[in-house]
Structure formats: C-alpha cells, structure tokens
C-alpha cells in the first residue's frame, strides 16, 4: 500500500506543479510576446514610409462607424442614470443636485469607461477577427511577399486610429449622455435646458475633464494594440479566428478597467 500512496502523492504533486508551471509559463510567454509586439509598434510608428491613406481609412472605419452605437449607448446611460438616481437624491432633498451629480459621474468615469468597453467589443473584436482571418488566408504573407511591411500597414495604422478616435467618441458619449440626462430630469419635472446645462458646467472643473480625456487615449491604444496582437499572432485555422476575436474583447475590456483604476489613483493623488 505504501508505495502506491507515495506514487499517487508524487503524481498529484507533479500534476499540480505542471499545471501551475503551464499557467504561469503561458502567462509570461504571453506578456513577453505582447511586450515585444508593443516595442515593435513604437519602432515602426516612427520609421518612414508613413501610411497616411490607410490611417485615414481606418480612422473612418473605426471612429465614424462607431458613432451611432456609442451615441445611442451614451444617451441611454445618461437617461437611465438620471432616472435611477433621482429617488435617492429625493430622500435627502437634494434633487437640485441631480444635473451636477450626473455630469461629474458621467464625464469623469461612466462616459469614458462605457465608451471604452463598447469600443473594445466592437473595434477590438473586429480588428482581432479581421487580422486573424487575413493571417489564416495567407493575405498577410501575400502583403509581405509583395514588398509591403504588413505590420506597418495593418497594425500601426489600426492602433493609431483607435488611439485617436476613442477620445472623440468618449466626448460624443458624454455630450449625448448629458442630453439623455436632461430628458431624464424633465420626465418628472420641468427644468429648462439653460438651467440644466448651467448647473452641469458650474459643477465641472478642468481637473474633471482633462484626466477623463487623457485616459481615453490609453484605452484606445490598449484596445487597438490588443486587437492587433491577438489577430496578428493568431493560430492558423478557423478556430484561431474565433479565439482571436474573443480573447481580444476579453483582454481589452480587462485592460480598460485596469487603466481606469490606475488613472483614478493617479488623479486622486493630485486632487486630494
């Protein structure tokens, strides 16, 4: 009996060890690989020739085409947030604070994060699926063979477009969200637009707006980079396309929260 127990025990330990090694190994390989990918991005972005036409095209596809989705979501968030907050403020007799409260939370936090998450779902997965299917069908190889640098043409342009477009989309989401909030306030009362927006702008300071906009650049960069990384480094085969799109959304969304957490910590250091 004793040897058997020993064998079982060793086997279980070995399995656990292998399991942990495999998880940590994969994690570190992934992180290292992403770090090299990021370094290559910074190397290629500075090196001519520059792909301005493709950058404009991608900015249009990534930014302009996301306007309706981001706008509708921003409007609904502003409206719902106002309706849900009103009863709580009513209990404390602070309904007059509603526009200010909605404005600060929408502009500082909810607008950028929700826009980032929608962007990760739409653009991150789109880039991941597009690049991985290009890889599977050898289109990236074909580009390389025809004397084009596919990294510069496909990755650099998409990451730059995502970095530039997300702040614009976040501003749009904020603006439309405030419009939704105005309508929400007027569902159970009568507040003029001038009074509502006066309260909104009185409650906001430059230090509310600037960090919120700055962090969206990082959101956009992270989403574009992860989408491109997952697509460009996808395994061949149709399974790889699905995995790339899926993991691009998951990792990009996680990074949005992580960057937001870091941004909030940094901002709070300067504000308090």
């Amino acid at each position, binding site marked *: 009996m004793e040897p058997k127990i020993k064998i079982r025990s060793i086997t279980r330990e070995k399995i656990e060890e292998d399991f942990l090694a495999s998880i940590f190994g994969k994690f570190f390989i992934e992180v290292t690989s992403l770090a090299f990918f990021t370094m290559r991005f910074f190397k290629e972005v500075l090196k001519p020739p520059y792909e301005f036409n493709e950058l404009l095209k991608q900015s249009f596809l990534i930014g302009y085409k996301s306007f309706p989705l981001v706008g509708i979501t921003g409007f609904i968030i502003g409206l719902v947030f106002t309706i849900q907050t009103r009863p709580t403020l009513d209990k404390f007799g602070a309904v007059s604070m509603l526009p200010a409260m909605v404005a600060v939370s929408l502009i500082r936090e909810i607008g950028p994060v929700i826009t980032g998450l929608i962007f990760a779902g739409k653009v991150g997965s789109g880039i991941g699926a597009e690049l991985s299917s290009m890889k599977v*069908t050898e289109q990236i190889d*074909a580009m*390389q*063979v*025809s*004397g*084009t*640098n596919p990294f510069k043409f496909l990755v650099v342009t998409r990451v730059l477009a995502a970095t530039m477009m997300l702040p614009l989309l976040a501003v749009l989401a904020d603006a439309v969200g405030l419009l939704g909030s105005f309508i929400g306030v007027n569902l159970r009362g009568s507040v003029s637009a001038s009074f509502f927006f006066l309260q909104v702008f009185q409650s906001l300071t430059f230090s509310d707006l600037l960090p919120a906009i700055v962090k969206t650049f990082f959101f956009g960069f992270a989403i574009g980079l992860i989408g491109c990384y997952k697509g460009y480094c996808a395994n061949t085969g149709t399974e790889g396309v699905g995995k790339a799109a899926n993991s691009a959304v998951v990792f990009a969304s996680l990074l949005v929260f992580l960057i937001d957490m870091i941004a909030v910590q940094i901002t709070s250091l300067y504000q308090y």
Partner: protein
Amino acid sequence: MTENAIPINIEHDSRQDSSVVVEMVHLRKSFENNDVLRDINLVINKGENLVILGKSGTGKSVLIKCIVGLVDCDYGSLAIFGKDISQLSEEELIETRKKIGFLFQSAALYDSMSVRENLQFPLRRQQRSISKEKMNSLIKEALENVGLSKAIDKTPAELSGGMRKRLGLARTLILKPEIMLYDEPTTGLDPITSKEISKLILEVQKKYNTSSVIITHDMECARLTADRVIVIKDGMCEAEGSFDELKNSTDAWIRSFFE
C-alpha cells in the same frame, strides 16, 4: 539562419554566374522536432521552369517560403541573385522580395478589396509616384493577360476558383517579377481550367523570361511547364531530371508519381 549559416562553397559559387538566380546549399529547416527540410542543395537558373514533386508534408511549400524569406531556414545558405538572404537587412529583403512573385495555393486575395484594388495595392506600394494613367494601363494589361478584363469591378468573393487563381497570378505578374513561385497553382481546379493556368505559366515564362518554381501534384501541369523536375523525399532531393527522364525512372517510387 545567421548563427549556423555556412558560406557557399567557393568552388561552386554561382554568385558570379548571372544565369543562376537562386542557390541553396545544405538547407535545413525543422519545426520543433519535425525535420521538414534535411539537406536541400538546389540551383535555379534564369528563365527556367523548375517543377517540384513530392508527397504532401515533405516540405515543398516550406522550401519556396524560404526562398521568399517568409520562413527562416535553420542551417545552410540561400542566395537570391547572388545575395545571401540571411545577411540582408529588412529593407534589402523587401527590395529583394519585389523581384519575386508568389502565387499562393489559396491565391491569398485581399477580400476587402475589389479586383482593381487588388492589382492597385502592390503597384502603389512599390511605385509610390506612379501616375493614375500608367497604373490603369498596367492593370488593364495584367487582366488581359489572364483573361479577366470583365471582372475588374468585382470582389474576390464573386469570382470562381479558377478566376481567383488567375487574379492571384495577375496581381503577382503586374510587378513583372524575375522569379515566380507557384504553390500548387492548379489544385482544386477542373482539368480545362488547370490546363489554362499551366499555359499561362508557360506564357509568363516566355513573355517575361522569368524563372519559375512550380510545386504541383498535377502531372499534366508538370508535363506542360517543366524544364526540369526534382522530387523531394524525406526533406531531401531524391531525384532530378527532365519530365520524361523521371517518368521512365528505374525507381518504382519515383515512377509512381507519374502513373
């Protein structure tokens, strides 16, 4: 390849010989524990059509991907136009690639672009200052060469398998490469379209004096196009000769390809 690269044997150095466009010496490539190419020694001459035969998975596609630098070899030397590609910088490699055309098995057309844009893409990349008129005339010529003039505004999804292959060929030929690499150009096509593609390969060779490497399992294509045939077995060149010589080989395994 750089660490284990070996110099080309000076006695047989063909870098001085302008008729040699590709020279491989003791080329090896492994993927993990799988030795795909074990010892390839091969010379491709200017204006020559070289057909490569071999069972599936013997490294034929890897071999031509090594030529164009899509795959780095582990050991040995590979010289294109007399330059060892392991010694080339990224920019020099891009310049060398501009002289090489590659027809992928799947044609690898850009799905998001129309037929016209598929042809415009390589032209714009390589000749940034090209005029619109010049580009349109080159596109027209390339499509006429492959009989696809009427499909200029279609998308790749609207084309048949044969048309996709011909478009892939047109996209490659528009840059007038000096070396053409064909990866199973007739696979999945009916015999008539296969014959058309084979004739196109021959026409290209005659018209532009290109050197071609053709990987195929289609014996009719091999018969029509080959100046020279090599057979790869276990990652090594097993036999070399003309189509008829190998067809009448005393080795039953080699003969089996032609039966």
